[in-house]
């Protein structure tokens, strides 16, 4: 099926790029969504079958593919609203739609790939399509954001490649299929320790650009800020997941070698530093979208803590990853509306949101409660499990530090969101405020409901899939 999906999606992307007709482009986007869903359903029915040697749908890929297909629908809907209200030129809209379609396609392919080099190629391609989205506004600042993103991603992708080379050095038998994740896992016991240490360091450092962790988090922040909000929603959810896929598949290999505790320490340091950086900037930042981007760093740090702690932390990390994708994309969709009301993302220019957009304000308030992991949010469950895992693996000091940082983050987040919702705006002319149709918030409500459902009462199938994902990790 991937043999039909990939060419089909690329053809749709190509047609979108050359097409200037509005009606036709809507139809093409619709066709892509239908194709995406047919592909997802087909793959769901054919789990664990290898296609074309390099693609295999395992439980992790399935979970993230379904997440992507769900988020793709509102992302396209909000993109449509964004482009029509902004009255963009047909050319810019065409590039935007084509880049989004290619981004979603390459992400799906990267999730499914079973060979580290194929994953690498598709991650490289996501950089390409993402940069077109970041440059959408065509001004100085978006150019700066694009350049930084492309440059940092180019360096990071080179680092991943160096890591892959070191990994190939570490193999005893360098045959053709030696670098599939399955083969690596089978041969995990025999790999050379010296080279694999270097390999892990380089691959992990390289992937942090997509994962939004220290040290290469900076590019992602500018990208999420400068891209239009629907694209930002994709960057903060599914694009971060692709980094996680690359990392997690290689982590499973290393967890089965004698380097397991060493890798855990590397991850722990990166995670702790990420949460610290996120805390520092969250307190200081005055731009709502950048604040949300820093919040993504914090959540990715928590996910990594869960992985490093092990035990129940593995389960919690996967759960948290999926729930975070939904919550972060819904906040970004909502921020698009905020921008349309105030024409600004700065915290100084906004306020009294309840007066101008009642539905949007309710969504924003709920999103705040959900993203800071207060009950009934599903993230509460996953964070609780992460802390339990940290406690069980005797990382008490780490746990206390992280709890302290999270308290600061909740305070900073709350301060800004309550300013947006309740404090009167300074110097805001409310004579002709844009009316936002409440229908545009339906997708956010559905996502919020989904998070509660998946967190508090997860369906059996969902739990089985997560357990399937982590079955190869040592207990």
């Amino acid at each position, binding site marked *: 099926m991937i043999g039909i999906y990939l060419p089909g999606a690329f053809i749709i992307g190509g047609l979108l790029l050359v097409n200037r007709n509005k009606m036709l482009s809507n139809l093409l986007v619709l066709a892509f969504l239908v194709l995406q869903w047919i592909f997802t359903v087909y793959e769901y029915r054919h789990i664990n079958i290898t296609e074309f040697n390099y693609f295999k749908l395992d439980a992790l890929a399935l979970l993230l593919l379904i997440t992507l297909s769900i988020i793709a629908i509102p992302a396209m809907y909000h993109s449509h609203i964004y482009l029509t209200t902004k009255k963009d030129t047909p050319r810019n809209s065409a590039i935007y739609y084509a880049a989004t379609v290619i981004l979603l396609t390459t992400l799906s392919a990267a999730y499914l790939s079973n060979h580290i080099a194929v994953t690498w190629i598709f991650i*490289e391609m996501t950089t390409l399509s993402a940069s077109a989205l970041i440059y959408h506004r065509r001004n*100085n*600042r978006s150019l*700066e954001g694009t*350049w930084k993103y492309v440059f940092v991603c*180019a*360096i990071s992708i080179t680092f991943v490649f*160096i890591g892959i080379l070191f990994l*190939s050095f570490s193999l005893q038998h360098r045959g053709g299929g030696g670098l599939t994740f399955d083969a690596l896992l089978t041969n995990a016991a025999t790999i050379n320790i010296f080279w694999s240490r270097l390999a892990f360091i380089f691959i992990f450092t390289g992937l942090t650009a997509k994962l939004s962790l220290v040290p290469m988090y900076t590019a992602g922040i500018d990208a999420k800020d400068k891209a239009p909000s629907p694209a930002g929603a994709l960057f903060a959810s599914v694009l971060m997941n692709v980094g996680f896929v690359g990392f997690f598949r290689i982590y499973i290999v290393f967890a089965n070698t004698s380097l397991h505790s060493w890798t855990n320490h590397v991850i722990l340091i990166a995670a702790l530093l990420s949460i610290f950086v996120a805390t520092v900037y969250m307190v200081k930042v005055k*731009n709502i979208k950048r604040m949300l981007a820093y919040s993504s760093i914090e959540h990715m740090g928590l996910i990594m803590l869960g992985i490093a702690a092990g035990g129940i932390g593995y389960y919690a990390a996967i759960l948290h990853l999926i729930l975070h994708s939904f919550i972060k994309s819904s906040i970004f969709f909502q921020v698009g509306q905020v921008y349309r009301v105030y024409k600004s993302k700065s915290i100084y220019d906004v306020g009294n949101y309840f007066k101008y957009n009642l539905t949007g304000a309710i969504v924003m308030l709920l999103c705040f409660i959900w993203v800071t992991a207060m009950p009934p949010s599903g993230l509460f469950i996953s964070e609780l499990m992460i802390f339990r895992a940290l406690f069980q693996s005797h990382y008490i000091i780490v746990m206390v530090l992280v709890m302290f940082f999270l308290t600061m983050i909740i305070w900073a987040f709350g301060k800004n969101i309550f300013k947006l919702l309740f404090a009167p705006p300074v110097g805001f002319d409310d004579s002709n405020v844009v009316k936002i149709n409440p229908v545009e918030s339906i997708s956010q409500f559905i996502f919020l409901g989904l998070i509660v459902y998946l967190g508090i009462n997860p369906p059996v199938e969902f739990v089985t899939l997560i357990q399937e994902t982590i079955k190869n990790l040592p207990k």
Partner: protein
Amino acid sequence: MINVLLIIFTISLLYLSIADRLLTYIKILAFQGIILFGVAFIELIQINPVNLALVLLETIVFKTIFVPLFLNYIIKRNKITRDSEPFLPNFISLIVITLIIIITFLLSNSIVDSSISKIYFIVSLSAIFSGLYIIATRKKIITHVLGYLVIENGVFILSLAVGTEMPLLVDLGILLDIFASVFLLGIFVNKIGDVLKDVDVDQLKKLKD
């Protein structure tokens, strides 16, 4: 013979650290392309001829001719001044790059694996870190691209170390090379030059918290 070529490559890194003018950087890059052609030819002679031809064409056409000419064109078109404008004096750069080479040399002593020849490891890692150092200490945006190209050359050498057993990885390295350089330079020639008049990293300080 390979050892001689790789040592010349390392010396070119030292020369890079004291180069003042952008044109010198471009010439060094072209020279490194020729060295890589030689190394690839000797090392990969046993692999499938079509693949070998691809690798050799990439080194000689792309690395040695196309990229330097293109860089030259960009510098002329955007009227970039010819000085590389380092933040640190050349003397310190020379010491730092020498230290990088010495450290990778010492690090290589801890390798116990006999199947990989150490010289590839030393030379490529020196090139990668020298490239990063150049990116960090030069003021112009174009020198960031030049530093990136040095990193690419280092990666190419590293991929040659397993080239006979896994030619796929060399091809991937080439893919990265073409993709990243064309993309970075493409943005540069089309956008940066038109929008930002004075091409300097100080122009890229608007996005911050």
